[in-house]
């Protein structure tokens, strides 16, 4: 294991099980409660200081729930979390406020996260007010100017008096990022920050976020279903399937040498801008849809969709993450044969 001062966030066997929704009619009829929704079902990872760590997986794999747990927006069912060497598993109210200053969230939709009646100056000042930052008018002004400069909205004075609708999508996402930076966080959680944005703006935002990360030495937890951006953007990635991590390691390693069949499927599904593919129907190594996290298959939870599954994959206990060296982990019993 690494020197612990190198690790900013450590998550140990984290779980989030939701109570299923039950209608009043069902309750009156005395129907048995349906099974728990195991959205995050035993996840462990470490994020190093100053790295961009990607959490990848298809819709419903539990990425957002994991992100919310890290943000401490929802309580975990079990498991532990350490941030900056401190146990943050359960925090009191004051500690929680302090934690949320250090770990900030970047929102997916910069429209929704910005009050249209606030000028850019006010949008940026709001977190200072919420977190009761004691500062004079001039000091606040300086903090706003600095945050805008960090996201390359220069000269900042040109933007501070504008309304959100007077900005492009890319500029709005910059302001949204500046808003999180103003509190000097150590880590940012970005949940699909670019998936709905058109491609040139997407490139602009990833570029900006990476610059900011390098300039300020920040750590990111980047959540996405789109592997294509991870090669450029992330240092290490963890691939999630149905609430568990099935493969983890350096992004280059995983993309060039995926070991888990699920990772391979994710890679194969990514389109590349090259000719010669129009007339082929792509062979997808997996079919069907992700099962419900209320009914997780026994054994390896991927076996129902795995093209290589054998009887032992469902009968033997769930495979744990195994280290194959160079920090590359996978959870597939049959990886050598594939």
């Amino acid at each position, binding site marked *: 294991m690494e020197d612990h001062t190198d690790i900013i966030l450590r998550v140990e066997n984290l779980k989030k099980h939701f109570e299923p929704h039950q209608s009043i009619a069902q309750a009156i009829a005395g129907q048995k409660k349906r099974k728990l929704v195991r959205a995050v079902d035993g996840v462990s990872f470490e994020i190093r200081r100053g790295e961009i760590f990607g959490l990848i997986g298809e819709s419903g794999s539990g990425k957002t729930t994991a992100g919310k747990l890290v943000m401490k927006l929802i309580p975990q069912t079990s498991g532990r979390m350490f941030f900056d060497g401190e146990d943050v598993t359960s925090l009191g109210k004051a500690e929680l406020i302090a934690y949320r200053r250090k770990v900030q969230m970047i929102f997916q939709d910069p429209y929704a996260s910005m009050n249209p009646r606030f000028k850019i100056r006010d949008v940026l000042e709001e977190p200072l007010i919420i977190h009761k930052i004691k500062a004079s008018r001039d000091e606040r002004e300086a903090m706003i100017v600095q945050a805008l400069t960090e996201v390359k909205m220069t000269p900042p004075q040109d933007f501070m008096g504008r309304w959100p609708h007077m900005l492009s999508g890319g500029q709005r996402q910059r302001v949204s990022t500046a808003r999180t930076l103003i509190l000097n966080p150590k880590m940012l959680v970005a949940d699909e920050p670019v998936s709905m944005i058109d491609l040139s703006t997407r490139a602009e935002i990833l570029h900006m976020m990476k610059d900011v990360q390098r300039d300020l030495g920040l750590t990111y937890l980047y959540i996405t279903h789109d592997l*294509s951006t991870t090669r450029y953007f992330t240092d290490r990635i963890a691939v999630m399937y149905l609430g568990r991590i099935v493969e983890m390691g350096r992004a280059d390693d995983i993309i060039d040498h995926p070991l888990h069949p699920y990772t391979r499927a994710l890679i194969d599904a990514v*389109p590349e801008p090259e*000719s010669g593919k129009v007339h082929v*129907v792509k062979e997808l190594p997996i079919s069907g849809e992700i099962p419900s996290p209320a009914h997780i298959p026994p054994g390896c939870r991927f076996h129902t969709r795995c093209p290589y599954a054998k009887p032992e994959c469902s009968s033997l206990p769930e495979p744990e993450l195994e280290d194959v060296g160079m920090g590359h982990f996978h959870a597939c019993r049959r990886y050598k044969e594939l």
Partner: protein
Amino acid sequence: MDTILRVENLKMYYHTSKGAVKAIDNLNFDLKVGETLGLVGESGCGKTSLGTSLLRMPTPPGRYESGRIILDGKDIIPMSEREIRKDIRWEKISMVFQGAMNCLTPVYTIGRQMLETLKEHREMEDSYATELIKEYLGLVGLPAEVMGRYPHEMSGGMKQRVVIATALFLKPSVVILDEPTTALDVIVQAQIINLLKKLKQTFNLSFIFITHDLALEAEISDRLCVMYAGKIAELGTNEQIFGPAAAGRGANHPYTEKLLASTPRLHRKVEKLSYIEGTPPDLISPPNGCRFNPRCHRVMERCRNEEPPLREIEAGHFSSCWLNDEGR
């Protein structure tokens, strides 16, 4: 190959209180039977506006200024709304709207919603319609049981399949798909793309596939039309746009080049992802000359004053860029 749709000098402007938004500004192209034509461009370039124009339903305050839309031999612009409803919309040309899967009514079952759409367009017995719905659900890979479900009981991919099935009901020749996979994850996206390819073959359909994702267009489009600020910047075959540079192929217009350079690649490590500074222009008063000139990395004096026409630079490959006069 026969032409199913020909667009000539089409202009469609939105007449707002601030002035006319020139969303579709003199487009010319055609679509062959059985062909998929991709339509790409940044947000606000007029992709959806073109789709709704072709369906003869521009959103208010949109109005045709000029041009012809010749569908199966007949110009549909002068037709009466009655004629359009009876013979054209959904019968010959249909559209999967941007975000449609999120617009399914939450309080009705899928079966009921599909039934109503069907009966709105054609008189038929319920029992016959139900059989038809089952058949089409099967075609898009869904079990008949889905008819009894509500939208919230289905995944995004399933809802998108329902929307696609609904667009195919009346056996149109042309289907416009507006960002059909943007909200879906990569695996479901790949499944939907495969489905579309199969449906196209089964019915000999022609598609207009709208997206801002160039990599996706490479997988599905026979030809690609790159739009910028209400105009066509470049139009060419898949090979002409995406083809290997080694074979002398590749994009011609600087806008297309830039879009390609800003597309992240999975199998190629890039240190820097390039992007286009600025945003597409306001279409009420777009720039003089070439509309891309304020953002173009290869801009010349001429580009600021004279508008470059869309010209054929090799057989079937069109580009509107003055660089082609300079021996590039």
